[in-house]
Structures are given as C-alpha cells and as structure tokens.
C-alpha cells in the first residue's frame, strides 16, 4: 500500500494498462507533448511514443468518433476530452455511436472505448467550463458511466473500464487530482456497477459519489462530533447504478440524504430517490433530502460561484433535517 494522489492513481492505471496490452492507446488534445492539461499523462509521450500517445487537433467529434471506429476494429482507445464540457461537441458520437452501435447491429460490433473527461466547478472558469453534467451521459442505455471518489477506486475502476468490452465514460473531477488515498501496489481491478460503503454509521445514510464523497466525508466528521454517525455509500458508477448497499443501510438508518455536485433537477438525487421510494419505501421514515447545485449557470465571481455549489454545511444541515 502506498499513499498516492488521484492524479497518480489515474496515471498508473493508464500506464500499467498500456504496458499490459498493446492495443491500448491514448488520443486527445495536449495528451502528448504537453503531458496532459492536468499532467495525468506526463512522460507518456517519451515512454510510449507518438503512435500510442496521440495529440489530436481540437476536434472533439472526431476524437470520440475515430476512437469509436478504432474500438470497433479491435483497438482499445482511451480518448481524453480535456473537459467534460467539450463532450457536448462529441455528443452525437457518444449518444448515437458509442452507446448504440452494439445493439443496433444485433451484437456484431463491440465498442471498447474509454472516454476520460474532467468535470466539476469551483475554479472560477465561468459558465461553460464548470459543469458537472454527469447525469446527462448516464441517461443513455448502452453507456457505462463511472465517477470515482478515491484514488483506490480511480485506479481499479479505470483498469476495469479499459478491460471491459463496453463503452465507458470515466469522469474525473478537476479539484480532486491532489487528494490522496491508499492504493495497493501492482495490479487490481474494481468491479464496474457496484457501489461501496466508504464510512460506517447507523444514524443516517448519505448516498453520493465523486466530489460529493469528499464533501460528505468531511460533513460526517462534523456530524460525528455531535454524536451523529453517517453511513456513506459511494455509488462510483452512475450507470449501471447499484443501490443494494444503500438499501441495506436504509434498513438500519431509515433516513437518507443524497449529495451530488450537479444541478438538482433530473439529477442523481432525483433518480436515486425515485428508486429508493420504489424499492425501499418501507424503510424510509422521513422524506429523503437532496443536496445539489443551485440551478444557475455558474458565475465567474468567486463568492457567487461558491454560493451555487454544494458545501459541507449544506450536507450537515440536510442531515439534521432528516433526523
């Protein structure tokens, strides 16, 4: 075990998978010479060469589209989108390509593509560069959408994403690259579509993922000092969505708060709450609460932006309300 950053964990997964399987290659803007805008692929270009670490023109449509094609033809592309906001320029290739090509041709093709994309707000990048639109992509059957909250899961899940024959969108949060966690040495794979208990507690269930996990863990510490113990369930994957551990936890706590960084309407909280009401109504003693982003395009001004983003205090408050 070693304590490493999220950036290192993602980087290690890519590196090890490229060493393991020659079909794996990286393509995207500034992934090569620059070393990745967030330095995730630093040194890859020198080690693996320009054939396997391919700098592309600024052209998201063809980045995902060509990666789809290469995946259909037997390669294992990892296509990097500099930010998830630019995935909207590749939306057709994701939605009508990656997600559908297998089903549409009766299973003749597989599209083992991984799209890595960085999202999240809080860095004063303004309305178009600060979004957390994870649910948009999770809407489409055929896609797998992963968004890890710890270095351990990032490494294990990215390896799984590269090895699965299905198309995966792997979402990273730009404010989390420096966050640290224990990661085993060597190879391991985490299962896609299995959520995980990240903190034990019996008073309330917090269901979250990615940046929301970080915030929730901190909120749980604060609550713990008041004698409230929160059980934290990390979804890790938005599609497939596994609510097993959340329901198990609810059986004990009978109360839940759902935390996400994205907007509230039609969000992760909306989906999770609907399914909990459908599948676990008998265990719910108090209306479920959602903590999410205020429904405005994010402003540049620092204070306004922070006002719009979910904060630790919002989670603490929501927990007190459901108790």
């Amino acid at each position: 075990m070693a304590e490493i950053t999220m950036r290192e964990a993602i980087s290690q997964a890519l590196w090890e998978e490229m060493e393991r399987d020659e079909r794996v290659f990286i393509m995207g803007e500034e992934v090569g010479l620059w070393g990745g805008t967030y330095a995730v692929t630093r040194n890859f270009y020198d080690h693996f060469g320009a054939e396997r670490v391919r700098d592309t023109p600024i052209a998201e449509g063809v980045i995902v589209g060509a990666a789809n094609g290469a995946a259909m033809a037997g390669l294992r592309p990892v296509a990097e989108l500099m930010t998830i906001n630019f995935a909207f320029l590749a939306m057709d290739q994701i939605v009508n390509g990656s997600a559908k090509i297998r089903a549409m041709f009766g299973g003749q093709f597989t599209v083992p593509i991984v799209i890595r994309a960085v999202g999240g707000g809080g860095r004063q990048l303004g309305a178009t560069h600060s979004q957390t639109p994870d649910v948009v992509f999770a809407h489409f059957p055929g896609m797998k959408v992963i968004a890890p909250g710890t270095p351990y899961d990032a490494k294990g899940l990215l390896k799984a994403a590269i090895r699965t024959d299905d198309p995966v969108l792997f979402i990273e949060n730009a404010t989390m690259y420096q966050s640290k966690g224990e990661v085993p040495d060597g190879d391991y794979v985490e299962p896609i579509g299995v959520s995980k208990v990240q903190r034990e507690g019996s008073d309330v269930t917090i269901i979250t993922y990615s940046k929301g996990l970080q915030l929730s863990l901190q909120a749980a510490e604060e609550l713990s000092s008041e004698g409230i113990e929160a059980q934290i369930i990390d979804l890790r994957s938005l599609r497939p969505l596994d609510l097993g551990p959340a329901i198990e936890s609810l059986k004990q706590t009978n109360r839940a708060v759902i935390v996400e960084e994205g907007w509230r309407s039609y969000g992760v909280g909306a989906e999770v709450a609907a399914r909990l009401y459908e599948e676990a109504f008998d265990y719910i003693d108090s209306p479920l609460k959602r903590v999410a982003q205020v429904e405005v395009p994010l402003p540049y001004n620092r204070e306004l932006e922070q006002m719009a983003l979910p904060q630790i205090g919002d989670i603490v408050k929501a927990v007190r309300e459901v108790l």
Partner: protein
Amino acid sequence: MAEANVAVKTLDKKELLRLYHEMALVRRLEEEAAHLYQQGKIGGFLHLYIGQEAVASGLLSVRRPEDHVLTAYRDHGVAIACGIEVKYVIAELLGKATGVSKGKGGSMHLADVRLNYWGGYAIVGSHLPLAAGIALADKYKGEPGVTICMFGDGATNIGYFHEALNLSMVWDLPVLWLCENNQYGMGTAVERASAVEEIRQKAEGYGMPNSRINGMDVLEVRGAAEEALGYVRENGTPYFLEVVTYRFQGHSIGDPERYRDKEEVDRWREADPIKIFRKHLIDTGAFSVDDLSIEEERVDQEVAEAVEFAEASPDPPPEALYENIYADS
C-alpha cells in the same frame, strides 16, 4: 493591397497616435492582469494578448459602428479595440459588479453590446456559427453591418469552423472571417494539427476569397482589413483573412511551455508589433521619442486608475446569482 496602402499613408497623425496608444494600453493591461493574477485577485483562466496587439487594433481601427465583432476567450485586446474602457475590463477580471459582464463572465467572457462587441467565447469554434447567424440577421433585416469573427488557428480544425464557412458562402452572408494564426493551439503547433499550414487554404476549399498577411505590422493589418471589409460590404459575401502573429506568453497563466524553445520566442519578440510601430512612427518623423514617452506615461496612468476603480468596486450582491438567467422571470 496598393489602394489600402494609399489609405494608410493618408492616416492623420491623430489616428496614428491613437493606434499607438491603444496597442500600448492593451500591452500594459495584460501585464497588469498577469500581476493581479499572481496576487490571487483574478481567478480561472487568463489568456493574454501580448504579441498579438496589432491584429485587433489594426483590424478594428477600420470597422464601422454597425459592424458586429465576436472573438474567442483571448479577448482583452479585442474588447479594448472595440472601445470598452479599460476600467470595465479590469473590473470584470476581478469579478466586480461594475465589470462589463457584471462579474459573471470573467476574463473569457467580455462583451458590450452597446459597442457592437458581441463577446468572447470559451468553447473553441462555438462562436463561428453565431457569427453566421448574426450576419444572417443583418441581411434578413436589410441592415448594413458586416460581422467580424475572430478565431485562432486551432479553431479551424473543428467541425463548427467548416460548417460556418460553408454556410456563409451558400447563403451569401456578410462575414469577415479573421483567423489569428499565432502558430499554436495551446501546445500544438499548426503543422501538427492542421492538414494545411496556410490556414487560408481552407477558405479556398469553400471558394471563398482570402489572403494571408503579416500580423506584426499594425498598418499592414489595417490596410488588409480595410480592403477585406470593403469586399464584404460591397458584395455582401464572406472574405477570409489569415493574420500571422505570435503569442509571447504561455497559452494561459501557468503554461509550462514545454512545446517550444526560448530561442523561438525570442526570435518572434524581435518582431514585437509595438516596437515595430514605435520605430516606424519615429523613423518617419511623425512623432518624437518624447511624444511617445508622454503617451506611454498616459497609458500607465490610465491602467493604474482603472485598477484603482476596479479594486474599489463592489462585488455583485448575493441575489445576482439568480439574475439574468431567464428573460421573463
């Protein structure tokens, strides 16, 4: 180009000095912005225009008030050349309520519709279709403006570029497409990302008249822009102008610049558009060294006052978070 040169030669001294002042102001503004960023007063991305001043100033010195202007996120110089006062630019960089976009846009999103400056856009290539639409609206309403759309070399590799250029020819739209070829899109040199090194060749593919000029000489830019705008105005159809320039700083603040060597940057610094113009003004006897020094002091003063104004300005109030989201709320 002959005709344009005649026009340039007849430039009066007042206009020459105004041009010099404007370019020096943009340079000073950008230096100050870098400083404010280092102090933590500006957040997010900050794309400086240093090295490219002659493009916006030369081009926009011949636009008419009815001409619309759009650009990408490297927009401070364009904003100034459109006539936005420097204090409202700096206020926006500081996220203040007095900023051109009320502190909600930041560096990448300056706009002032009263000055017919329709904004800086942060999604590469996304404003090219908008420019086509704005030109369509002029044509539809029978209004005389030309839409001037500025973008980088990197933006010419994205689908939007091709869709917009094509549409502007098919629909005869009055657009001046202006490519600021500063030779890199982030760390990617033009020849590593574009199938043709002369970006103007892409316009060729759409049957669009075009030219490629030196963007380090403000008078050359002005002359070429005058001719190009004249063409669009007269024919009501698009023109493509590629302006070759160079950015002296990193792509955004914090760029490690591993993709180019210092010698290359130094070589280009010798073609500094402000130094070249300064020398021209002195060599032709239009102005003395003292005249220009006085102007430079004015610029320093202006930027210092603008910073003072911006720092003293209020932040947007909390309720601003909910404002300007919908037109009918």
